[in-house]
Protein backbone atom coordinates (compact mmCIF):
# COMPACT_ATOMS: atom_id res chain seq x y z
CA UNK A 1 0.00 0.00 0.00
CA UNK A 2 1.43 3.31 -0.99
CA UNK A 3 -1.48 5.61 -0.27
CA UNK A 4 -4.43 5.85 2.05
CA UNK A 5 -7.53 4.62 0.36
CA UNK A 6 -9.83 7.53 -0.39
CA UNK A 7 -12.80 5.58 0.94
CA UNK A 8 -11.25 5.26 4.32
CA UNK A 9 -10.41 8.95 4.35
CA UNK A 10 -13.98 9.88 3.48
CA UNK A 11 -15.39 8.06 6.49
CA UNK A 12 -13.32 10.00 8.97
CA UNK A 13 -12.94 13.30 7.11
CA UNK A 14 -14.69 16.22 8.76
CA UNK A 15 -17.00 18.37 6.64
CA UNK A 16 -15.34 21.50 8.00
CA UNK A 17 -11.92 21.75 9.55
CA UNK A 18 -10.30 24.82 11.06
CA UNK A 19 -6.59 24.20 11.33
CA UNK A 20 -4.67 26.67 13.51
CA UNK A 21 -6.71 29.56 12.13
CA UNK A 22 -5.92 33.06 13.36
CA UNK A 23 -7.55 36.35 12.53
CA UNK A 24 -6.34 39.76 13.57
CA UNK A 25 -7.58 43.29 13.09
CA UNK A 26 -4.43 45.32 13.57
CA UNK A 27 -3.38 44.77 17.17
CA UNK A 28 -6.54 42.94 18.09
CA UNK A 29 -6.46 39.15 17.83
CA UNK A 30 -10.01 38.01 17.11
CA UNK A 31 -9.23 34.34 16.72
CA UNK A 32 -6.12 32.72 18.05
CA UNK A 33 -5.00 29.43 16.51
CA UNK A 34 -8.46 27.91 16.26
CA UNK A 35 -8.66 24.15 15.75
CA UNK A 36 -12.15 22.86 15.15
CA UNK A 37 -13.51 19.85 13.26
CA UNK A 38 -17.14 19.54 12.32
CA UNK A 39 -18.41 16.18 11.13
CA UNK A 40 -20.78 15.77 8.19
CA UNK A 41 -24.40 16.37 9.27
CA UNK A 42 -23.28 17.67 12.63
CA UNK A 43 -25.12 20.62 14.13
CA UNK A 44 -22.86 22.88 16.10
CA UNK A 45 -23.97 25.85 18.17
CA UNK A 46 -21.43 28.57 18.79
CA UNK A 47 -22.02 30.69 21.85
CA UNK A 48 -20.03 33.24 23.75
CA UNK A 49 -19.85 36.87 24.80
CA UNK A 50 -19.75 39.56 22.16
CA UNK A 51 -16.27 40.13 20.78
CA UNK A 52 -15.31 36.52 21.41
CA UNK A 53 -14.82 35.87 17.70
CA UNK A 54 -17.83 33.63 17.20
CA UNK A 55 -19.34 35.51 14.26
CA UNK A 56 -15.86 35.78 12.72
CA UNK A 57 -15.76 31.98 12.56
CA UNK A 58 -18.79 31.97 10.27
CA UNK A 59 -17.63 34.95 8.23
CA UNK A 60 -14.26 33.34 7.56
CA UNK A 61 -15.94 30.13 6.49
CA UNK A 62 -18.18 32.12 4.11
CA UNK A 63 -15.01 33.81 2.78
CA UNK A 64 -16.30 37.21 3.85
CA UNK A 65 -13.15 37.65 5.92
CA UNK A 66 -9.62 36.66 5.03
CA UNK A 67 -7.70 34.63 7.56
CA UNK A 68 -4.22 35.60 8.67
CA UNK A 69 -2.90 32.16 9.56
CA UNK A 70 -3.91 28.56 9.20
CA UNK A 71 -6.11 26.69 6.75
CA UNK A 72 -9.83 26.08 6.57
CA UNK A 73 -10.92 22.86 4.89
CA UNK A 74 -14.35 22.06 3.53
CA UNK A 75 -15.28 18.54 2.53
CA UNK A 76 -11.64 17.47 2.37
CA UNK A 77 -10.53 20.36 0.19
CA UNK A 78 -8.74 23.50 1.27
CA UNK A 79 -11.08 26.52 1.19
CA UNK A 80 -8.73 29.36 2.00
CA UNK A 81 -5.92 27.84 -0.06
CA UNK A 82 -5.50 25.80 -3.18
CA UNK A 83 -3.14 23.01 -3.92
CA UNK A 84 -0.14 23.67 -6.08
CA UNK A 85 1.70 20.38 -6.31
CA UNK A 86 2.38 19.40 -2.72
CA UNK A 87 2.00 22.90 -1.40
CA UNK A 88 -0.91 25.02 -0.34
CA UNK A 89 -0.96 28.56 -1.71
CA UNK A 90 -3.56 31.24 -0.92
CA UNK A 91 -6.77 30.74 -2.88
CA UNK A 92 -7.50 32.88 -5.91
CA UNK A 93 -10.93 34.22 -6.84
CA UNK A 94 -11.75 31.24 -9.06
CA UNK A 95 -10.95 28.75 -6.31
CA UNK A 96 -13.03 30.68 -3.79
CA UNK A 97 -15.97 30.78 -6.18
CA UNK A 98 -15.77 27.03 -6.70
CA UNK A 99 -15.53 26.27 -2.99
CA UNK A 100 -18.14 28.77 -1.85
CA UNK A 101 -20.77 26.72 -3.62
CA UNK A 102 -20.61 24.24 -0.73
CA UNK A 103 -21.58 26.86 1.83
CA UNK A 104 -24.72 28.88 2.46
CA UNK A 105 -25.27 31.61 5.00
CA UNK A 106 -28.19 33.30 6.70
CA UNK A 107 -27.52 36.72 8.20
CA UNK A 108 -28.71 38.51 11.30
CA UNK A 109 -30.24 41.31 9.21
CA UNK A 110 -31.59 38.99 6.46
CA UNK A 111 -29.91 40.97 3.66
CA UNK A 112 -32.67 40.14 1.22
CA UNK A 113 -32.59 41.94 -2.11
CA UNK A 114 -35.23 44.66 -1.56
CA UNK A 115 -35.95 45.18 -5.25
CA UNK A 116 -36.92 41.56 -5.82
CA UNK A 117 -39.94 39.55 -4.75
CA UNK A 118 -39.49 36.59 -2.38
CA UNK A 119 -39.54 34.25 -5.35
CA UNK A 120 -36.99 36.28 -7.34
CA UNK A 121 -34.74 36.49 -4.29
CA UNK A 122 -34.61 32.70 -4.33
CA UNK A 123 -34.21 32.44 -8.12
CA UNK A 124 -31.48 34.99 -8.72
CA UNK A 125 -28.40 32.96 -7.78
CA UNK A 126 -29.62 29.59 -9.08
CA UNK A 127 -30.15 31.19 -12.49
CA UNK A 128 -27.08 33.43 -12.72
CA UNK A 129 -24.62 31.24 -10.80
CA UNK A 130 -25.77 27.65 -11.31
CA UNK A 131 -27.20 28.28 -14.76
CA UNK A 132 -30.61 26.80 -14.01
CA UNK A 133 -33.37 27.52 -16.50
CA UNK A 134 -35.81 30.08 -15.10
CA UNK A 135 -38.64 27.55 -14.91
CA UNK A 136 -36.41 25.09 -13.02
CA UNK A 137 -35.28 27.81 -10.65
CA UNK A 138 -38.86 28.96 -10.16
CA UNK A 139 -39.95 25.44 -9.26
CA UNK A 140 -37.07 24.99 -6.83
CA UNK A 141 -37.68 28.38 -5.23
CA UNK A 142 -41.41 27.67 -4.96
CA UNK A 143 -40.78 24.38 -3.20
CA UNK A 144 -38.36 25.92 -0.74
CA UNK A 145 -40.64 28.85 0.02
CA UNK A 146 -43.44 26.34 0.61
CA UNK A 147 -41.15 24.44 2.96
CA UNK A 148 -40.58 27.58 5.03
CA UNK A 149 -44.32 28.19 5.02
CA UNK A 150 -44.47 31.11 2.61
CA UNK A 151 -46.15 29.71 -0.48
CA UNK A 152 -48.72 32.50 -0.26
CA UNK A 153 -46.04 35.23 -0.27
CA UNK A 154 -44.11 34.39 -3.43
CA UNK A 155 -44.73 37.76 -5.06
CA UNK A 156 -44.30 39.85 -1.94
CA UNK A 157 -41.36 42.17 -1.67
CA UNK A 158 -39.19 42.11 1.48
CA UNK A 159 -40.72 45.41 2.64
CA UNK A 160 -44.13 43.75 2.62
CA UNK A 161 -43.03 40.90 4.87
CA UNK A 162 -42.52 40.69 8.63
CA UNK A 163 -39.02 40.15 9.99
CA UNK A 164 -39.70 36.49 10.64
CA UNK A 165 -41.02 36.02 7.13
CA UNK A 166 -38.03 37.82 5.65
CA UNK A 167 -35.66 35.57 7.55
CA UNK A 168 -37.51 32.51 6.30
CA UNK A 169 -37.13 33.79 2.73
CA UNK A 170 -33.41 34.24 3.43
CA UNK A 171 -33.19 30.61 4.58
CA UNK A 172 -34.96 29.44 1.43
CA UNK A 173 -32.71 31.62 -0.69
CA UNK A 174 -29.57 30.06 0.80
CA UNK A 175 -30.97 26.52 0.46
CA UNK A 176 -31.75 27.11 -3.22
CA UNK A 177 -28.01 26.87 -3.89
CA UNK A 178 -27.97 23.34 -2.37
CA UNK A 179 -25.09 23.94 0.05
CA UNK A 180 -23.58 21.16 2.12
CA UNK A 181 -22.88 23.48 5.04
CA UNK A 182 -25.34 26.08 6.33
CA UNK A 183 -24.24 28.97 8.51
CA UNK A 184 -26.71 30.82 10.72
CA UNK A 185 -25.40 34.06 12.15
CA UNK A 186 -27.62 35.20 15.03
CA UNK A 187 -30.60 34.75 12.77
CA UNK A 188 -33.17 35.66 15.41
CA UNK A 189 -31.31 38.53 17.06
CA UNK A 190 -32.96 41.22 14.93
CA UNK A 191 -36.45 39.80 15.40
CA UNK A 192 -39.17 40.65 17.84
CA UNK A 193 -39.38 37.82 20.38
CA UNK A 194 -42.74 36.59 19.11
CA UNK A 195 -41.29 36.12 15.61
CA UNK A 196 -38.31 34.00 16.67
CA UNK A 197 -40.37 30.84 16.98
CA UNK A 198 -41.33 30.60 13.32
CA UNK A 199 -37.69 30.96 12.22
CA UNK A 200 -36.40 28.46 14.77
CA UNK A 201 -39.03 25.91 13.83
CA UNK A 202 -37.93 26.19 10.18
CA UNK A 203 -34.34 25.53 11.24
CA UNK A 204 -35.54 22.65 13.41
CA UNK A 205 -37.33 21.00 10.51
CA UNK A 206 -34.28 21.57 8.30
CA UNK A 207 -32.21 19.70 10.81
CA UNK A 208 -34.66 16.82 10.76
CA UNK A 209 -35.10 16.58 6.98
CA UNK A 210 -31.86 17.56 5.37
CA UNK A 211 -28.45 16.06 5.38
CA UNK A 212 -26.94 19.44 6.12
CA UNK A 213 -24.02 20.35 8.27
CA UNK A 214 -25.02 23.34 10.36
CA UNK A 215 -23.13 25.95 12.30
CA UNK A 216 -25.04 28.54 14.19
CA UNK A 217 -24.03 31.47 16.26
CA UNK A 218 -26.85 32.04 18.68
CA UNK A 219 -27.92 33.65 21.92
CA UNK A 220 -30.90 31.33 22.24
CA UNK A 221 -29.52 28.92 24.81
CA UNK A 222 -32.73 26.89 24.94
CA UNK A 223 -32.61 26.32 21.20
CA UNK A 224 -28.91 25.50 21.23
CA UNK A 225 -29.46 22.92 23.91
CA UNK A 226 -32.38 21.26 22.20
CA UNK A 227 -31.13 21.45 18.61
CA UNK A 228 -27.35 21.23 18.54
CA UNK A 229 -25.27 18.07 18.72
CA UNK A 230 -22.40 20.04 20.13
CA UNK A 231 -21.91 23.42 21.74
CA UNK A 232 -18.72 25.46 21.46
CA UNK A 233 -18.24 28.25 23.95
CA UNK A 234 -15.92 30.94 22.59
CA UNK A 235 -14.10 33.35 24.80
CA UNK A 236 -11.32 35.76 23.82
CA UNK A 237 -10.68 34.20 20.43
CA UNK A 238 -10.49 30.60 21.61
CA UNK A 239 -12.82 27.75 22.33
CA UNK A 240 -12.98 27.88 26.12
CA UNK A 241 -15.16 24.82 26.41
CA UNK A 242 -17.07 22.47 24.15
CA UNK A 243 -19.10 19.34 24.46
CA UNK A 244 -22.38 17.60 23.68
CA UNK A 245 -25.20 20.10 24.15
CA UNK A 246 -26.90 18.30 27.00
CA UNK A 247 -23.72 17.81 29.01
CA UNK A 248 -22.46 21.29 28.26
CA UNK A 249 -25.49 23.00 29.75
CA UNK A 250 -26.05 20.57 32.63
CA UNK A 251 -22.51 20.28 33.74
CA UNK A 252 -20.23 23.05 32.45
CA UNK A 253 -16.62 22.40 33.35
CA UNK A 254 -14.96 25.79 33.51
CA UNK A 255 -15.77 28.65 35.82
CA UNK A 256 -15.82 31.05 32.84
CA UNK A 257 -18.54 28.97 31.16
CA UNK A 258 -20.63 28.85 34.31
CA UNK A 259 -20.25 32.60 34.69
CA UNK A 260 -21.39 33.20 31.11
CA UNK A 261 -24.34 30.83 31.33
CA UNK A 262 -25.47 32.42 34.59
CA UNK A 263 -25.34 35.87 33.02
CA UNK A 264 -27.27 34.74 29.95
CA UNK A 265 -29.93 32.92 31.93
CA UNK A 266 -30.51 35.94 34.13
CA UNK A 267 -31.10 38.06 31.05
CA UNK A 268 -33.95 35.79 29.90
Amino acid at each position, binding site marked *: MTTDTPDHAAVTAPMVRFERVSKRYGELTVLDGLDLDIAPHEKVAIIGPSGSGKTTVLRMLMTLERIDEGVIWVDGEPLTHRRRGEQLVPADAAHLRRMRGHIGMVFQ*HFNLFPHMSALRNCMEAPVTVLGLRPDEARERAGELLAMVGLSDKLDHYPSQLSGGQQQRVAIARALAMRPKVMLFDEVTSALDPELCGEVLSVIRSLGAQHQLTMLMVTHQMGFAREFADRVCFFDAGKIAEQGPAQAFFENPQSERTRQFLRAVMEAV
Partner: protein
Amino acid sequence: MTPIWDGDYAREILPILAEASLITVQATLMGFALALVLGLLFAAGRLYGPPGLRLAFGAVVEFIRSTPLLIQIFFLYYVMPDFGLTLDALPTGVLALGLHYGAYCAEVYRAGLDNVPKGQWEASIALNLSPWNTFRRIILPQAIPPVVPALGNYLVALFKETPLLSVIAVLELMQTAKILGSESFQYTEPITLVGLFFLAFSLVSAALIQRLERHLNRRPGRQRTP
Protein backbone atom coordinates in the same frame (compact mmCIF):
# COMPACT_ATOMS: atom_id res chain seq x y z
CA MET B 1 -39.72 104.41 -34.19
CA THR B 2 -39.50 100.64 -34.33
CA PRO B 3 -41.84 98.80 -32.02
CA ILE B 4 -40.40 96.92 -29.04
CA TRP B 5 -41.82 93.64 -30.31
CA ASP B 6 -42.15 92.94 -34.02
CA GLY B 7 -44.74 90.16 -34.19
CA ASP B 8 -44.39 89.61 -37.92
CA TYR B 9 -40.65 89.16 -37.63
CA ALA B 10 -41.08 86.81 -34.69
CA ARG B 11 -43.51 84.66 -36.69
CA GLU B 12 -41.07 84.67 -39.61
CA ILE B 13 -38.10 83.41 -37.64
CA LEU B 14 -40.02 80.92 -35.49
CA PRO B 15 -39.64 78.00 -37.98
CA ILE B 16 -35.90 78.68 -38.27
CA LEU B 17 -35.50 78.66 -34.49
CA ALA B 18 -37.68 75.56 -34.20
CA GLU B 19 -35.31 73.79 -36.56
CA ALA B 20 -32.29 74.97 -34.58
CA SER B 21 -33.95 73.72 -31.40
CA LEU B 22 -33.65 70.20 -32.80
CA ILE B 23 -29.87 70.60 -32.71
CA THR B 24 -30.09 71.87 -29.13
CA VAL B 25 -32.21 68.89 -28.12
CA GLN B 26 -29.91 66.54 -29.99
CA ALA B 27 -26.81 67.93 -28.27
CA THR B 28 -28.59 67.73 -24.91
CA LEU B 29 -29.75 64.15 -25.25
CA MET B 30 -26.51 62.83 -26.72
CA GLY B 31 -24.40 64.79 -24.26
CA PHE B 32 -26.46 63.56 -21.33
CA ALA B 33 -26.42 59.94 -22.53
CA LEU B 34 -22.63 60.19 -22.68
CA ALA B 35 -22.56 61.83 -19.23
CA LEU B 36 -24.66 59.00 -17.75
CA VAL B 37 -22.33 56.34 -19.13
CA LEU B 38 -19.08 58.14 -18.31
CA GLY B 39 -20.33 59.12 -14.87
CA LEU B 40 -21.11 55.52 -13.98
CA LEU B 41 -17.72 54.46 -15.30
CA PHE B 42 -15.94 57.13 -13.24
CA ALA B 43 -17.92 56.29 -10.11
CA ALA B 44 -17.50 52.52 -10.37
CA GLY B 45 -13.79 52.93 -11.14
CA ARG B 46 -13.32 55.18 -8.14
CA LEU B 47 -15.21 52.88 -5.78
CA TYR B 48 -14.23 49.40 -6.91
CA GLY B 49 -11.21 49.76 -9.19
CA PRO B 50 -7.60 48.97 -8.33
CA PRO B 51 -5.83 51.74 -6.37
CA GLY B 52 -4.13 53.22 -9.45
CA LEU B 53 -7.40 53.53 -11.31
CA ARG B 54 -9.17 55.04 -8.29
CA LEU B 55 -6.54 57.72 -8.10
CA ALA B 56 -6.58 58.39 -11.84
CA PHE B 57 -10.38 58.61 -12.06
CA GLY B 58 -10.47 60.77 -8.94
CA ALA B 59 -8.00 63.16 -10.51
CA VAL B 60 -9.90 63.29 -13.81
CA VAL B 61 -13.20 63.99 -12.07
CA GLU B 62 -11.68 66.72 -9.90
CA PHE B 63 -9.94 68.28 -12.88
CA ILE B 64 -13.07 68.40 -15.00
CA ARG B 65 -15.18 69.77 -12.18
CA SER B 66 -12.64 72.46 -11.39
CA THR B 67 -12.34 73.93 -14.88
CA PRO B 68 -15.02 75.85 -16.80
CA LEU B 69 -17.05 74.08 -19.44
CA LEU B 70 -16.39 76.94 -21.85
CA ILE B 71 -12.65 76.34 -21.71
CA GLN B 72 -13.13 72.61 -22.10
CA ILE B 73 -15.16 73.25 -25.25
CA PHE B 74 -12.47 75.53 -26.69
CA PHE B 75 -9.77 73.09 -25.72
CA LEU B 76 -11.41 70.09 -27.37
CA TYR B 77 -12.18 72.07 -30.52
CA TYR B 78 -8.99 74.07 -31.04
CA VAL B 79 -6.26 72.17 -29.17
CA MET B 80 -7.13 68.51 -29.62
CA PRO B 81 -6.57 68.65 -33.42
CA ASP B 82 -2.90 69.30 -32.61
CA PHE B 83 -2.93 65.89 -30.93
CA GLY B 84 -4.60 64.29 -33.91
CA LEU B 85 -8.20 64.41 -32.68
CA THR B 86 -10.25 66.45 -35.09
CA LEU B 87 -14.00 66.40 -34.63
CA ASP B 88 -16.80 68.43 -36.14
CA ALA B 89 -18.36 71.12 -34.01
CA LEU B 90 -21.42 69.15 -32.85
CA PRO B 91 -19.55 65.95 -31.85
CA THR B 92 -17.01 68.13 -30.04
CA GLY B 93 -19.83 69.86 -28.18
CA VAL B 94 -21.45 66.56 -27.26
CA LEU B 95 -18.12 65.20 -26.04
CA ALA B 96 -17.45 68.31 -23.94
CA LEU B 97 -20.92 68.26 -22.39
CA GLY B 98 -20.67 64.51 -21.78
CA LEU B 99 -17.28 64.75 -20.09
CA HIS B 100 -18.18 67.76 -18.00
CA TYR B 101 -21.51 66.46 -16.77
CA GLY B 102 -20.11 62.93 -16.55
CA ALA B 103 -17.80 64.20 -13.81
CA TYR B 104 -20.77 65.67 -11.93
CA CYS B 105 -22.92 62.58 -12.46
CA ALA B 106 -20.03 60.46 -11.15
CA GLU B 107 -20.39 62.07 -7.72
CA VAL B 108 -24.13 61.46 -7.77
CA TYR B 109 -23.70 57.80 -8.70
CA ARG B 110 -21.04 57.46 -6.04
CA ALA B 111 -23.43 58.63 -3.35
CA GLY B 112 -26.06 56.22 -4.62
CA LEU B 113 -23.69 53.26 -4.77
CA ASP B 114 -22.25 54.08 -1.34
CA ASN B 115 -25.71 54.08 0.18
CA VAL B 116 -26.46 50.47 -0.70
CA PRO B 117 -25.93 48.55 2.55
CA LYS B 118 -22.78 46.43 2.80
CA GLY B 119 -24.95 43.46 3.62
CA GLN B 120 -26.12 43.38 0.02
CA TRP B 121 -22.57 42.67 -1.14
CA GLU B 122 -22.12 40.08 1.58
CA ALA B 123 -25.35 38.28 0.72
CA SER B 124 -24.25 38.25 -2.91
CA ILE B 125 -20.89 36.73 -2.01
CA ALA B 126 -22.64 34.13 0.12
CA LEU B 127 -24.78 33.25 -2.91
CA ASN B 128 -21.64 33.10 -5.03
CA LEU B 129 -22.73 35.83 -7.44
CA SER B 130 -19.80 37.22 -9.41
CA PRO B 131 -18.76 40.80 -8.63
CA TRP B 132 -20.04 41.91 -12.02
CA ASN B 133 -23.45 40.27 -11.57
CA THR B 134 -23.65 41.65 -8.05
CA PHE B 135 -23.00 45.15 -9.34
CA ARG B 136 -25.33 44.86 -12.30
CA ARG B 137 -28.26 42.98 -10.80
CA ILE B 138 -28.13 43.74 -7.06
CA ILE B 139 -26.30 47.01 -6.35
CA LEU B 140 -27.13 49.18 -9.35
CA PRO B 141 -30.91 48.64 -9.25
CA GLN B 142 -30.86 49.85 -5.64
CA ALA B 143 -28.40 52.69 -6.19
CA ILE B 144 -30.07 54.40 -9.16
CA PRO B 145 -33.68 55.15 -8.14
CA PRO B 146 -32.74 57.36 -5.15
CA VAL B 147 -30.43 59.49 -7.32
CA VAL B 148 -32.79 59.97 -10.27
CA PRO B 149 -33.81 63.46 -9.06
CA ALA B 150 -30.18 64.55 -8.77
CA LEU B 151 -29.36 63.15 -12.19
CA GLY B 152 -32.45 64.86 -13.57
CA ASN B 153 -31.24 68.21 -12.26
CA TYR B 154 -28.05 67.73 -14.24
CA LEU B 155 -30.05 66.99 -17.37
CA VAL B 156 -31.78 70.37 -17.04
CA ALA B 157 -28.49 72.08 -16.14
CA LEU B 158 -26.73 70.55 -19.14
CA PHE B 159 -29.57 71.62 -21.41
CA LYS B 160 -29.26 75.18 -20.22
CA GLU B 161 -25.55 75.21 -20.97
CA THR B 162 -25.90 74.15 -24.61
CA PRO B 163 -25.79 77.82 -25.76
CA LEU B 164 -22.08 77.64 -24.90
CA LEU B 165 -21.70 75.48 -27.98
CA SER B 166 -22.38 78.59 -30.05
CA VAL B 167 -18.75 79.59 -29.42
CA ILE B 168 -17.60 76.79 -31.71
CA ALA B 169 -20.38 77.62 -34.17
CA VAL B 170 -22.69 74.70 -33.51
CA LEU B 171 -25.93 75.81 -35.14
CA GLU B 172 -28.03 75.36 -32.06
CA LEU B 173 -30.60 77.85 -30.81
CA MET B 174 -28.29 80.55 -29.54
CA GLN B 175 -25.98 80.55 -32.54
CA THR B 176 -28.99 80.67 -34.87
CA ALA B 177 -30.50 83.55 -32.91
CA LYS B 178 -27.23 85.48 -33.09
CA ILE B 179 -27.05 84.96 -36.85
CA LEU B 180 -30.64 86.07 -37.28
CA GLY B 181 -29.97 89.13 -35.16
CA SER B 182 -26.88 90.12 -37.06
CA GLU B 183 -28.76 89.83 -40.35
CA SER B 184 -31.81 91.83 -39.36
CA PHE B 185 -30.34 93.97 -36.58
CA GLN B 186 -33.32 92.84 -34.53
CA TYR B 187 -32.09 90.90 -31.50
CA THR B 188 -35.09 91.25 -29.21
CA GLU B 189 -37.29 88.73 -30.98
CA PRO B 190 -34.80 85.90 -31.59
CA ILE B 191 -33.20 86.14 -28.15
CA THR B 192 -36.56 86.34 -26.39
CA LEU B 193 -37.87 83.37 -28.32
CA VAL B 194 -34.77 81.38 -27.43
CA GLY B 195 -35.33 82.23 -23.77
CA LEU B 196 -38.96 81.15 -23.96
CA PHE B 197 -37.98 77.96 -25.67
CA PHE B 198 -35.52 77.11 -22.90
CA LEU B 199 -38.10 77.93 -20.26
CA ALA B 200 -40.69 75.66 -21.85
CA PHE B 201 -38.30 72.78 -22.35
CA SER B 202 -36.92 73.02 -18.80
CA LEU B 203 -40.40 73.00 -17.28
CA VAL B 204 -41.43 70.01 -19.37
CA SER B 205 -38.33 68.00 -18.47
CA ALA B 206 -38.65 68.86 -14.78
CA ALA B 207 -42.22 67.58 -14.87
CA LEU B 208 -41.15 64.39 -16.65
CA ILE B 209 -38.40 63.75 -14.12
CA GLN B 210 -40.85 64.25 -11.28
CA ARG B 211 -43.17 61.69 -12.82
CA LEU B 212 -40.33 59.22 -13.26
CA GLU B 213 -39.34 59.79 -9.64
CA ARG B 214 -42.87 59.15 -8.43
CA HIS B 215 -43.07 56.02 -10.54
CA LEU B 216 -39.81 54.68 -9.07
CA ASN B 217 -40.93 55.44 -5.53
CA ARG B 218 -44.25 53.72 -5.94
CA ARG B 219 -42.80 50.30 -6.63
CA PRO B 220 -42.96 48.05 -3.56
CA GLY B 221 -39.31 47.09 -3.80
CA ARG B 222 -38.31 50.66 -3.01
CA GLN B 223 -38.59 50.76 0.75
CA ARG B 224 -35.41 49.53 2.33
CA THR B 225 -35.38 46.64 4.73
CA PRO B 226 -33.41 47.25 7.94
